[in-house]
């Protein structure tokens, strides 16, 4: 699945299509350089899922969780940012198993590359999303692989 994001509103359209295709208990990984729009996309995803709270960057806190309404296909949105992690042992301290233990949680992970094999070891369906941008252009290209 491929998208082109021209304006900020396009993230909402993308998020709506994306969440309707996510399997239960999914892990969604977001890759792309600093400033690509990863946290902006997570905000759009949370809107698409009907969350009342606006997700803020979890870079410093590493993890932020948001309760989702009953109308949503997921119970909790768990937003993880591995940007500041230094090694795979660090990933242990995130407590990802516990965070995703609740049935129906959606784990969204920024900078998944820094978690090594941790996510695969969780044996959940992983959907990978990559955001890229041409130099000097505002347009974002988004590619989703399942």
């Amino acid at each position, binding site marked *: 699945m491929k998208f082109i994001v021209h304006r900020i509103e396009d993230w909402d359209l993308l998020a709506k299509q994306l969440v309707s295709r996510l399997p239960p208990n999914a892990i969604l990984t977001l890759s792309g*350089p*600093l*400033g690509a*729009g990863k*946290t*902006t996309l997570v*905000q759009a995803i949370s809107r698409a899922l009907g969350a009342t709270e*606006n997700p*803020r*960057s979890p*870079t*410093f*806190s*590493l*993890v*932020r*969780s948001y309760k989702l309404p009953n109308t949503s296909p997921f119970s909790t949105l768990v937003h993880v940012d591995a940007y500041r*992690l*230094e*090694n795979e*042992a*660090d990933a*242990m*301290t*995130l*407590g990802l198993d*516990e*965070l995703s233990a609740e049935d129906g949680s959606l784990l969204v992970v920024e900078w998944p590359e820094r978690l090594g094999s941790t996510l695969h070891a969780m044996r959940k369906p992983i959907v990978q999303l990559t955001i890229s941008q041409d*130099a*000097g252009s505002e347009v974002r290209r988004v590619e989703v692989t399942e």
Partner: protein
Amino acid sequence: MKGMRILGIETSCDETAISILNVSGKSVKVEQNLVSSQIPIHQKYGGVVPEVAARSHVPETVALITEVLGKKGLKAFDAIAVTNGPGLATALRVGIEAGRVLAMLSGKPIIGVNHLEGHLASAWLNADNRKRWKYPLLALVVSGGHTELVLMKDACKYKIVGQTRDDAAGEAFDKSAKLMGLPYPGGPQIAKLALEGDPAGFDLPRPMLNDGSLDFSFSGLKTAVRQTWEPWMKGPEERKDKAKRDLAASLQQAIVDVLAAKTLTAAKKYKVKGVLLVGGVSANVMLRERLESDLKRELPSVPFLPSDKLFVTDNAAMIAAAGAWRLAKGEKHDWKKIEAKPEWNL
């Protein structure tokens, strides 16, 4: 009068910190203040460097508590204050379990403290600030993880009146620095380069400056820095260096402009009797000077109450101080029931 010695424990995120604060009438004294990252590794682990994850906190907590209690052991403190949220659950639990064990063994009271309240209390550790401490107060909390305007209506009564909608101010500094190829931590690097740069060199946005809200948004600034810097990356070294200094100065100016303007607006709106500046980014000299001079000019009767630089980053003295506030109100927790609250809002 014998003071109350409060053992502070902080393990909510990156830092392991242990402190003893002595509160006696109007006197408040930080007797011990250890922060793990500021102690050489061999000293912490007694020569053997174990292989541990950055946020395991366990060996650090044990080492620092042992050091702080010394020969007095459980007699070194009269009460315990421990951060129990917000933060990383696995990290918070290390400090909480340590606090629970000490409370159980010593029979002394324990109080769970909100990390953000700890930051507010960091300004109270300064004696001059305490003399001018009159509610309502306004606090600008700025760090790598926080950008919040907190209205302190009365002792332990808070309302968040403004906050970032995406990135924290400290994050904007750090990530912009990274985009410009500067070493970590980026904030101090930007401030240093900015000294020799032109703050009007690049036209960066002032996000949400005039939107009428007290909220912030710094995520777009990061993108603007990336787009501004990209064409310079392959340029000749000498011009590149000047551009880097100018961009650092322009970025700092943009962040400080927004922080100062919103803080002043909030101070006027809520007619506060003092303005606190706390959190890691409050070490930024330009932000301190700007907020102080803006206040002097526009609200001359409102004192500026920044925390000492020693206590701006995560520490346990501020946790003990917030604990002192709560204990003074007669609050305490049952050690059996105290638990981690990773998403605890102030």
